[in-house]
């Protein structure tokens, strides 16, 4: 807990005087500890002179921010039209079954969190998935299984 507040203080100090600094601060917190703990709201509120409701509103408005810790890896499956045209529906059904979870859930061993995403900007090579910060194109169920296996190995 002490560690969390030390980290938070440093990040807040860095972003406190930045115009429109709330989003960059939230990104920095999530990059650093993986999510935005609601216990951080108090400190942010005081430093940026915002109400808790305003901070909660921003955190929950954006799909990217999470308030609970994710698994060790985040796997995003693109659900947008281009990937649908190349069979992403079957791919998402497969991966949900393979990992035994639905979207926004984390596997029991905490290895993967599964999220939908709406376009990864690689539509010439659909269907696409993103594992942590890397996109993988022209994905098949077999390649995705291999990717999952390789990641936890």
């Amino acid at each position: 807990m002490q560690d969390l507040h030390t980290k938070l203080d440093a990040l807040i100090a860095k972003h406190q005087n930045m115009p429109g600094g709330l989003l960059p601060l939230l990104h920095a917190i999530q990059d650093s500890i993986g999510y935005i703990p609601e216990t951080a709201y108090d400190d942010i509120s005081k430093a940026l002179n915002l109400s808790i409701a305003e901070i909660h509103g921003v955190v929950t408005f954006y799909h990217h921010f999470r308030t609970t810790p994710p698994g060790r890896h985040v796997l995003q499956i693109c659900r947008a039209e281009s990937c649908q045209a190349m069979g992403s529906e079957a791919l998402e059904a497969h991966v949900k079954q393979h990992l035994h979870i639905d979207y926004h859930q984390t596997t029991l061993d905490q290895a993967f969190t599964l999220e939908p995403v709406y376009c990864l900007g690689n539509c010439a090579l659909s269907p696409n998935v993103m594992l942590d910060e890397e996109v993988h194109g022209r994905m098949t169920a077999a390649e995705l299984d291999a990717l999952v296996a390789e990641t936890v190995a």
Partner: protein
Amino acid sequence: MTYTVYIPRDSGALAMGAEKVANAVIQEAQNRGLAVQIVRNGSRGLYWLETMLEVATPLGRVAYGPVKAKDVPSLFEADFLNAKPHALYLGLTEEIPYLKKQQRLTFARVGVTDPVSLNDYLAHDGYKGLHNALKLTQADIVKNVTDSGLRGRGGAAFPTGIKWNTVLACQADQKYIVCNADEGDSGTYSDRMIMEGDPFVLIEGMTIAGLAVGATQGYIYLRSEYPHALVTLNQAIEAAKQANYLGDNILGSGKTFHLEVRRAAGAYVCGEETSLLESLEGKRGLVRFKPPLPAIEGLFGKPTVVNNVISLATIPIILDKGAQFYADYGMGRSRGTLPIQLAGNIKHGGLVELAFGATLRELLYDYGGGSASGRPIRAVQVGGPLGAYLPESQFDTPLDYEEFSKIWAVLGHGGIVAFDDTVDMAKMARYAFEFCAIESCGKCTPCRIGSTRGVEVIDKIMAGTEPEKNIELVRDLSDTMLNGSLCALGGMTPYPVLSAMNHFAEDFVPNAYKLQQAKVAA
């Protein structure tokens, strides 16, 4: 001698294993004691050939692709470093028809240069536009942009010069240039290619915009799904600062322009300019009422130019070669070139920059090579998730803003997503409503509630509950959303929905009936 090999760092190439290919080339060169210099360029945009590896020869660059890491030893074995034949040999890159037939103005350097090398940028005509702009008055810079006929490439197609003129005319202690790099439309990736493949051209365009309207601060609002673009942009901005192309005294002119990248956070609606500004201010991305226009009261209440990546990245060539040079391309009121992105079920997906006027059919078949699945292309969606679906009978429509609006369609950001004949258009219409419901900012009722009701009504049609009555209801709901929404999200969701219903009415029948028909056919 030292050989030079180009291996893209573009995330599309990385998605096909470019990093592994690069490592394999380094390893193999070491094993063989060969001196190989690797340049990590952007992508040429011939994505079905990624990872496309190029080697410099006295005759020009020679390409090989699509290369996997496992192909690397055989490439060395075949002596690819001296451009020798191999199963993946593609010949001179510039002679590949897909590339040779294009008119690359905005994308002139993408895939050619090292994206983060300022020297490379300068050696390929970089910053010539800025040098010219520094000699012009503000009004003359704006006039050049107006005369070029450039219209906003983000999708709305509003004349860029007119927008700039409004900001120039405003008196204010602070003005801003904001680059909308929240490229969320499915089927589009040209912004990403510019930012990863030639970030300096965007920086130069924004700097010229700053000089033109008297803005000293710029922001690039970049979607969070593009981590590689974030890296290249920041590296390029740092290099530009070091060399005085950004900062308090640009090239000794006494002019100031600062630039910062801000990360978005996965909200599609923040691609709408007022919602984007709210987000940049650190708030929820709720759409603002207009007026006031952002050009008059934009970021932090100050006059602000909000332009798309492609619009801004096109400014340098206009200032370098002149307004007339650019305006000579195109047709009707659509001047210049459009970077088109071929996507979805397409054999040769990639970036095709052409003057306005090419037809969809040329793009889908001459460039795209037909569908990836080999089945007939039944529908294409042009212009992202808010664009209309077009049937085969409309494939001869030229790509031109006005021609598209005549058939109740939009060009948008130039993304073309192809679907083969296995697509169920009722499902796509349902998805359009579903996407709107997920991404609605919630400020206006037609979008917030209408999208959810839309999903429910389409479900009823598919379940066979009073289909005729419910089809009428979808039309009525679409009318409300079209006319009553605050921004394009709710206001254009009816485009994919109604175009699907109008052109593919046979799909809007109960699922049970479709199953029965399929059985009869079998």
